[in-house]
């Protein structure tokens, strides 16, 4: 089995940052994939399938983060999450 590793950098662009609503959307999306997905900020990792982990990573508007997915559907996972980030989670 081929294990892919995908990485991509983002800036949090919605005005409220990764708060409850945005984190919920990340968890909903990440949970559709088998890959292990994490969000990295200043070297600290948060499980992208854990709402509390994302929240407590504390990423306000403007934070630079790195997304890292590991598993056979890693590319698809990163692509799906990219859409979320690009659309600012459907917020301002």
């Amino acid at each position, binding site marked *: 089995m081929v294990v892919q590793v995908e990485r991509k950098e983002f800036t949090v662009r919605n*005005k*409220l*940052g990764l*708060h*409850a*609503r945005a*984190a*919920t959307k990340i*968890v*909903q999306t990440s949970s559709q994939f088998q890959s292990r997905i994490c969000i990295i900020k200043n070297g600290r990792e948060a*499980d992208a*399938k*854990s*709402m*509390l*982990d994302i*929240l*407590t990573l*504390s990423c*306000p*508007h403007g934070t630079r983060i790195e997304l890292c997915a590991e598993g056979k559907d890693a590319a698809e996972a990163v692509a799906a999450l990219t859409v979320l980030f690009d659309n600012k989670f459907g917020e301002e």
Partner: protein
Amino acid sequence: MSPGNARMVLHGIGVAPGIAIGKAYRVDRNKVSLAYYYLPSPAQIKREKERFDVAVEKAEADLKEIRAKMAGAFPEHAYIIDTHIHILRDSMLYDETMRTIDQQAVNAEWALRQALEKVQQIFAEINDEYIRSRFSDVDFVAERVLQNLTGQNKQSVTGIRERVIVVAQDLSPADTIQLQVEKTLAIVTDMGGKTSHTAIITRSLDIPAVVGLEKVYQAVRSGELMVVDGHAGKVIIDPDEELLNFYYERQYQLERYRKEVVRCAELPAETEDGYHIKIQANIELLEEVVAVIDNGAEGVGLYRTEYLYLNLDQPPNEETLFWDYRELAEIIYPETVTFRTLDLGADKLSTRLRPSNETNPALGLRSIRLCLQEDQTFRTQLRAILRVSGITKNVKIMFPMISGVGELRAAKTVLEEVKHSLIKESIEFDKDLQLGIMIEVPSAVAVADLLAREVDFFSIGTNDLVQYALAIDRVNEHVAHLYEPLHPAILRMIKQAADAGRQAGISVSLCGELAGEPLYIPILLGFGLDSLSMNPLAVPRVKKIIRNASMEESKDCLNEVLQFTTADQVNDYLCELAWRRFREDFELFADGMGKLPAASGIDQ
């Protein structure tokens, strides 16, 4: 007095108007008490994990059910329940609990509580106030699972099956948000005040509410018949038929009256003889803008900006303020928003700004004085407001508690410095932005003519003015009866400030409870004010009465009233006038068929 009898009548604070009649439903929010036990065998550990799983599944099913119900009535809040569902299965809570049961061989309740404490610790270390406060969601979710585990499934607001009056000691924001509006006739609580969360939510949902009843939870049984009078702040338990019929009739009449008044809320407040006075709203939270618009207020005359500062270790940053202010200004556009700069006082201090013990906080380091000392906090707020003004151009700034020209100039210097730094950074702001002050300290009235040369507008804040001028602490029960807004001294002071403003050619408004009190409309018109700012819910009725009033008559009324020597005389005169001229706007609010209560409206 109203006819009939009842088992008990309780008096509290009416925070959302309207009359509700229905059965009581007691909601118990006391936390589940927890036992600890050790699991001696692997088989028991396995069973315990299954038991935990069942409890989580049940909580999940319950939440999904709530969500389905909410999606219709309350779509904008449904995501909160999604959040709760995710938290339920979150590895930090779920996996951690399972692991603790396994490793420590303890019961599920105990393991869950431990996991919860770990999460709490992590949240407590976060700087972001918003995220830190989200721990209440985690707590709420864990509480549901714990209730399932212990089988002590307390009645919660979600269990309501028919239209009821919710009776509680206190309701958390999470409870209030879960209320099914269509099943809730009214809310009554033992605790809370005019600005509590329950008060704000019920007002925006238009559900009658009375808080601060102290012992209603203890006094009433679930299923008992109650009447809730949100106007009078009265709760009647088990009324007899005569009293019940009286309230049914009154409820019907009030509904009819309210519908009619709100239907005309968009019409301007212009007297029969063509004098137009602007009617604006006082608000405390961004969420209240809905009420501002629905009730036909012409903009926000007083945005109390303290809310974002409460209970924080650090004042909020510029961006947080900017986005809150910007959203408000954009929604209100093309009407204007008047931002009152931080008026943190004795009763509403955030932890960091709290000065050392003061023996007399109402006369101490507060409001503009505190801002001039905590000058960085003040500058941050001014920057946020100015930046918004550059975008929306409908923003005004108002300094609270100004006591004289020297203090005003010190505050203006700070404002000018902030403007300069924005110019240096090429950040836009509204060059024509109007600056005003609250007239609420007696010394400001005495030098109103001097102050008027320095600003673009006055806003007379009657709540504090009455308190400072009469030396009465209104929450002190021993002297509260001496708190007289109609005291001849107050009327003379308002007149002096209004005249000084007019002579200097600046606009004068009045905010505070006085402004929203329909009984006082004739004298308020008589002062020749440019605008009144009040609780949004008071707007439609005030506008209606003004449309039926005349300026000429109001001036005569004020001249007459200024001859009186006591507040009681003024009040009697105004009641008589209201009864004679605006009977249909007052009779429903009078106590029985007799005398009008001194304050018949609801404000603040």
